[in-house]
């Protein structure tokens, strides 16, 4: 009787151990996947790059024709920057796709965009050598992950090897948006104010002045909305960087409940900031 009970107990313990082992092996890393998926979505948003590239052309609305050759020159310079700026988005997107795939124990995909990254590096599209090196490092890892058919057991390795160069690329993106795009928006706002104030000083017809005031308010609102999008996108990019840093620091314990909760907080903050951008 006693032997029978001991046998049952042993079977129960063995079963419990097997269940625990299985759950450890198949921890679903929901928060890592959530963070990666939201970062992927956020990196697809490249509207701010488009607006920045087109600012000199839009400024022609406000400035006298004597300034147009200078604005045309700036427009072509920015057009030349466009690809590099968009490639940063592509890199983050591809990286987050691989991170999400590995967290789900899937295979990272080798697609055209990954090819495009390699070509851009060969063409030396980067003005900054430090960023070019970081870009090459992340890009190379992504190719290795896809061609060597990495799975979840390589997740820790991906995070570990990519964190430093990834931070360089995301940091460059955040700085560009925070300084460059904010400064760009401030210039457009000043141009708008100069243009409409001059017209309003020159105007005499009350109906014309009323129409001008309406247009001025309309254009001003557009710029206010754009400014809000810039501010929120800075939060998005900084949260992607901070969240990845957290992944790096906790890379060997990603299935722990408290680590999952921490990563989920980054994913939630990211969603909130990105929803604010999309909602504008």
């Amino acid at each position, binding site marked *: 009787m006693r032997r029978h009970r001991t046998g049952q107990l042993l079977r129960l313990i063995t079963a419990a151990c097997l269940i625990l082992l299985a759950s450890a092996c198949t921890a679903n890393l929901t928060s890592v996947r959530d963070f990666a998926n939201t970062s992927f979505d956020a990196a697809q948003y490249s509207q701010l790059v488009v607006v*920045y590239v087109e*600012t*000199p052309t839009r*400024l022609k609305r406000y*400035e*006298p024709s*004597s*300034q147009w050759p*200078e*604005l045309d020159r*700036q427009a072509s*310079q*920015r057009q030349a*920057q466009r690809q590099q*700026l968009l490639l940063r988005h592509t890199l983050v997107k591809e990286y987050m796709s691989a991170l999400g795939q590995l967290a789900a124990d899937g295979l990272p995909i080798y697609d055209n965009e990954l090819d495009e990254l390699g070509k851009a590096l060969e063409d030396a599209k980067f*003005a*900054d050598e*430090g*960023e070019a090196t970081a870009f090459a490092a992340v890009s190379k890892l992504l190719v290795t992950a896809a061609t060597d058919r990495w799975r979840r057991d390589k997740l820790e390795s991906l995070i570990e090897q990519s964190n430093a160069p990834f931070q360089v690329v995301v*940091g*460059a993106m955040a*700085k*560009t948006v925070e*300084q*460059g795009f904010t*400064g*760009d928006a*401030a*210039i457009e706002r*000043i*141009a708008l*104010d*100069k243009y409409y*104030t*001059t017209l309003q*000083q020159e105007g005499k017809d009350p109906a014309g002045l009323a129409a001008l005031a309406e247009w001025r308010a309309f254009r001003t609102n557009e710029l206010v909305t754009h400014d809000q999008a810039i501010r929120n996108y800075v939060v998005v990019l900084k949260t992607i960087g901070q969240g990845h840093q957290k992944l790096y620091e906790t890379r060997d314990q990603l299935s722990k409940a408290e680590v999952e909760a921490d990563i989920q907080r980054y994913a939630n903050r990211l969603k909130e900031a990105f929803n604010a951008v999309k909602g504008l």
Partner: protein
Amino acid sequence: MPPLTSDDAFALSKSFRDLSVALGDFRFAHWNTLSESDRSTLEDEEWSLLNSASDMITKVVGLTLDESQAGVARLKGATASAQKAVKTLNDVRKVITVATASVGLAAAIVSKDPGAIAKNAKAVFDAATASA
């Protein structure tokens, strides 16, 4: 002068756009007493300064390095003294002198000509302080 970093270019862009705003404030505040020609001259200088600020933003976006450089402080000092002069002066001729010197400085910075930068920074500072 060493090459501009992104932080330098951002700071200078802000200095020149603030100067453009200060000139615009002067033009609007003295609108009825200014001749059409003076208004037009001032407005041209405002747009030139604003477009130089925009050009510096293009450089900010093209650079990601962070090291701070000495020397830029002198340039910011020159534009700050120009801005202060424009805000306190009433004489349009003096304001135009300060504005013209500032446009020259902005152009020299954008063209990365060290000799012209030093010469124009001095010209801005001299114009701003002589006017005070």
